């Protein structure tokens, strides 16, 4: 069984996902004071996506399955699971929804973003608001 290796990936979010994610840097102060409700930051250009606190890539730790070998052409691995941790809150998301590492990384960030928003905003999070609205419609 392959072991999971820790790999800190300190690159800015723009390097991984195309705009608009990561264009705003998250103030460190808000992270250290989870008790304070933060006004959600508008995510420009993202269709149908509620306004959520954006993630700072510097506060994320990404893990891929270790034992990837030399990598690139010299390797054929299909283990595309991504484990993403938000360090300040300790929230961890594991994603193996797709067969593409790239897609799993993006999905993991999206899921993590929702969880982190709920963590800090609780009932005020757009995630919960949407669920309540959806429940009302039923």
């Amino acid at each position: 069984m392959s072991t999971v290796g820790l790999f800190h990936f300190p690159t800015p979010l723009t390097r991984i996902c195309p705009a608009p994610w990561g264009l705003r840097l998250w103030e460190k102060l808000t992270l250290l004071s989870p008790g304070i409700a933060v006004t959600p930051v508008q995510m420009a250009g993202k269709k149908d996506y509620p306004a959520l606190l954006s993630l700072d890539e510097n506060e994320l730790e990404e893990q891929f399955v270790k034992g990837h070998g030399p990598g690139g052409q010299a390797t054929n691995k299909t283990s595309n699971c991504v484990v993403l941790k938000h360090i300040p809150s300790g929230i961890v998301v594991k994603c193996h929804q797709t067969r593409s590492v790239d897609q799993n990384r993006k999905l993991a960030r999206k899921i993590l973003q929702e969880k982190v928003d709920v963590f800090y905003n609780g009932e005020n999070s757009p995630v919960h608001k949407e669920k309540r609205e959806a429940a009302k419609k039923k």
Partner: protein
Amino acid sequence: MELWGRMLWALLSGPGRRGSTRGWAFSSWQPQPPLAGLSSAIELVSHWTGVFEKRGIPEARESSEYIVAHVLGAKTFQSLRPALWTQPLTSQQLQCIRELSSRRLQRMPVQYILGEWDFQGLSLRMVPPVFIPRPETEELVEWVLEEVAQRSHAVGSPGSPLILEVGCGSGAISLSLLSQLPQSRVIAVDKREAAISLTHENAQRLRLQDRIWIIHLDMTSGCQLGTLGTNLQVWLIRSRGRPKVWHERSWTHLPWGPMDLIVSNPPYVFHQDMEQLAPEIRSYEDPAALDGGEEGMDIITHILALAPRLLKDSGSIFLEVDPRHPELVSSWLQSRPDLYLNLVAVRRDFCGRPRFLHIRRSGP
């Protein structure tokens, strides 16, 4: 019967147990018709993981998960509806899983077993021996997209950017660029007919065939470094189903203008490393898609040598390479000032290895 016995044992003992003993641990259990109605997805995964591990097949669990999920109509086990995890499988499904798993026992790569794989969110057909796109290469595409977005003046006008892909394989890079750059046009080149057909098929599946020209061409044959290829016979497939044979003497007579970008994941494995590749790769993928010669640089240097004549001024080349190449490419470019190419950036892959190069043309 042996298989049924094992699975029955696994059912009674719980998933995850490897069947080394075949004790029949039931007393009042009545024998049921074999296979169908007894085994669920979870049990099947457990069973085949055990089989693969016993036979030393790498990624035993992942392989069995992908195979079982595939037979149940999902791309990954995690994305399978939870209700399906414990539902009994039909005998047809069990048979299918058995067939696919037997190929895995022959070390066939999962992507060839399933006949498809995903790249940058696109589903692509996979057929041996055409090279299977690697996860690292998705980052190459991401980088190109970022750079194109920054040069916003080139985006938005029809036919722009105009991209050349050298060694298109299954079409992964070309098609993911086309799908995310709605105005772009791509010329995809490969020396293997199998790759040409597969790229063509994938382009049609994704309805991108109108913006891609796929050319069966060996870039390295008949070309001397630094000079244009002469007497190149170019077989041009312009997909709308009407193949056209195009005889060309030189690159400059092609009807499309100079390129904005050249992108490639060229064969870059060092020749001496070829025999150390895993059986999955050695036995099933085209070695010509991997072997880059003594220092893995042969095709890289060919592309760079041809690039100035193919690129617009300040056009870019994006390459995926071996981690030892950034230095080698840098030295080589310095030895060729006549090309007016500069290595402007090196980017690491998700494992932290220097994997991608951005080279820019500047000058006459």
